[in-house]
């Protein structure tokens, strides 16, 4: 059961990756990365149960926090960098 869930999450991560590569705007990419991050949290938690090692949950917590911080950081950065850079990136 955990295996199926983990596989589905992997598929969703792949979908998010497709969106991250396709763009078309910078914000689509950030959204995809953020989504990818939240899926990683789920995957880590499910894997913890799959292997029967609940210490994995600590890693999941770190992921939640770090994912949040990095998304905010990326947004801040592009806000600073201004519109011109954002368009070049996109």
């Amino acid at each position: 059961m955990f295996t199926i869930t983990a596989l589905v999450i992997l598929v969703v991560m792949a979908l998010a990756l497709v969106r991250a590569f396709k763009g078309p705007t910078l914000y689509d990419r950030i959204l995809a990365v953020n989504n990818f991050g939240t899926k990683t949290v789920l995957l880590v938690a499910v894997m913890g149960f799959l292997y029967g090692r609940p210490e994995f949950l600590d890693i999941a917590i770190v992921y939640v926090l770090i994912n949040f911080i990095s998304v905010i950081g990326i947004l801040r950065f592009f806000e600073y960098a201004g519109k011109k850079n954002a368009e070049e990136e996109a």
Partner: protein
Amino acid sequence: MEILFDIVSWICLVAGSFFCLTGGIGLLRFPEFFSRIHAASITDTLGAGLIMIGLMFQAGWGLVLAKLILILLFSLIAGTTASHAMAKAALKSGLQPQVVGTMDSETGGAPSKS
């Protein structure tokens, strides 16, 4: 009791996976950024929530359960805030949502074409 918990947790896991998958497909299928946020928000709320609840039923009473609840709360708050921050930043950078109309609560909720 044990078997009941298992069944409930399996149902939650399957339903959660389904919602995650739906959100992932929506992320690809919806036409523009602002509607894609809604798709992503499915995976973040009900998808993640159901999977976590499914895991909670497997965890039994104890620290693992508490940690799962913590992760769920954190990810809900952080995910919500991140969605908002992204939408706001996108709007600020000049990305305009494609809409069929706008509404204002002060004009009595009447739709006005923009």
